[in-house]
């Protein structure tokens, strides 16, 4: 009896601690939402309040009048879509081959690919920029997308998963006259769906938030993506903090929504990629 009460109390204490930390974690987001709805007079209070004195939706409309935000949004969607689809498609093909097919030099090629994971992008950024200039790809979607669709990490993660699928699966299909592409498409892609979803989310996340390459390869305002636009126009154009935070909220909103919907897969994907 006594033990039960003690247990209950310790549980309650744990919940109190976790809830407090949880509130602290969520507060910056709440504050950002509240500030983005405030009129200017609310911003310069020595005792700021979480609740705006009046709700000013106009701040969100003002974002689009201040900078070409719709264009940034569109660019971000196109670039993220291109990079994510490209990464998943190319990495899954290669992962299937590395995990399931036999060919001379396979392990060495895979090892070389893996070594690439250790080199930070900053070392490669200037030569890549020069290459883009030679291709005339500066300020283009190709320039933003193509150099970032080859993911060694994706090949590694998906290969790890596909190694777990018995080779008999595809031996049988081959004996029935299917070629490896059909095996990949009809057997492995459906089986690897959880891993593909997990990697797809990580690729989506990284692409949507990516900053350094997008900053480097574009210079015209029309080709900026959300993070770059948001960073560069601060102070200069966004003189009203409420409008600037409205822009920040809109930039992060789609991924947060995606996360709330696909939470389980995403968290499992992170755990999966971290463990191996």
């Amino acid at each position, binding site marked *: 009896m006594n033990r039960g009460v003690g247990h209950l109390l310790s549980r309650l204490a744990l*919940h109190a601690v976790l809830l407090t930390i949880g509130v602290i974690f969520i507060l910056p987001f709440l504050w950002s939402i509240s500030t983005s709805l405030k009129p200017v007079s609310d911003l310069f209070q020595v*005792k*700021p309040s979480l609740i705006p004195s009046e709700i000013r939706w106009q701040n969100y409309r003002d974002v689009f009048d201040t900078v070409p935000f719709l264009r940034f949004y569109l660019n971000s969607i196109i670039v993220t879509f291109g990079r994510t689809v490209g990464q998943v498609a190319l990495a899954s093909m290669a992962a299937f081959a590395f995990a399931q097919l036999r060919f001379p030099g396979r392990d060495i090629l895979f090892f070389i690919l893996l070594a690439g994971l250790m080199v*930070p*992008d*900053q070392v490669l950024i200037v030569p890549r920029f020069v*290459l883009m200039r030679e291709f005339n790809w500066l300020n283009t979607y190709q320039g933003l997308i193509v150099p970032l669709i080859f993911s060694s990490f994706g090949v590694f993660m998906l290969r790890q998963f596909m190694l777990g699928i018995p080779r008999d699966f595809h031996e049988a299909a081959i*004996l029935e006259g299917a070629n490896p592409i059909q095996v990949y498409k009809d057997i492995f892609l459906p089986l690897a769906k959880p891993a593909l979803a997990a990697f797809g989310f990580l690729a989506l996340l990284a692409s949507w938030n990516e900053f*350094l390459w997008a900053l480097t390869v574009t210079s015209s305002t029309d080709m900026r993506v959300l993070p770059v636009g948001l960073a560069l126009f601060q102070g200069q154009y966004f003189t009203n903090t409420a409008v600037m935070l409205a822009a920040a909220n809109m930039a992060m909103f789609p991924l947060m929504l995606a996360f709330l919907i696909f939470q389980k897969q995403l968290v499992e994907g992170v755990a999966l990629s971290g463990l191996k």
Partner: protein
Amino acid sequence: MAETVSAGASGGVLGGRRSRQEAAWGYLLIAPVMLGFAVFFLIALGASFYLSFNKWDMLTSPVFNGLDNYRDVWRDGEFREALVNTLAITIPHIVLRLICAMGLAMALNSNIRFRSFYRMLFFLPVLTMPVAIGTIWKWLYDPAFGPINSFLRRFGLPEPEWLSNPRTAIAAVVIVLLWSGVGYDMVIYLAGLQTIPREYYEAASLDGAGAWQRFRDVTLPLLTPTIFFLSVIGIIYSLQVFDLVYVMTRIDQTNQLPTVVYYIYEEGFRNFRMGYAISVAWVLLLMILVFTFIQFRLQRRWVNYV
């Protein structure tokens, strides 16, 4: 690495043709990734290495100048400042993150209610765009009108200048990095905790071990591979910190807290000292390799592999 499955049908003429076909398909399927890798990685890496020994403004042709760039990096006061900033951010960031994340993970590893709700709360900042996070926190830290100092004021506590003072700026940045990264480590820890067999704890309890002893003798040793993994990737990531810090600490168009990657970008694409910027990047790569190497060397002393 080599998963040698029994060679199914490799004998005979048919088998030979089949394995040649299989090899052809294999090369075909890896071709796109390998081609992209060759162009955007291998060639870029070679060019980068060569250019780091050149003086180059990108308008005229590169001029070979031997080790001059690296010698300049060594003497460069601005680089040193960026390096000190980066390390001053990295070290407390990683240490605090590893500890806080472990605490959270252990709290959530029990069969506590609302577990996935808490996990979601702590994980949410992980996927938020760093530039947006920086924008938000910059306002939270505003010395006069931000909520943080308003809160401190209410309790009569000292009000730091946060981002406008280089010394407090480091603390401010570390707090944000902690907030935005701890959820990631927590998820990895949770996965690690789940691999510890329950029987270990039961056996320890039977031997009369209290909660602290169970943590010290069972949980901690069995989590060392996870701690090792997290500290290796955490340091690699943190040494490359850029966008979040850049957005937060750029005040009136000057960067109060330049980091190494910021300096690379600035030297290359603003001052057009391409060769020099590349050599700074190579120094960064070298530092990452050294840090990682040291960690791998030290792991024998403290990491338990079951």
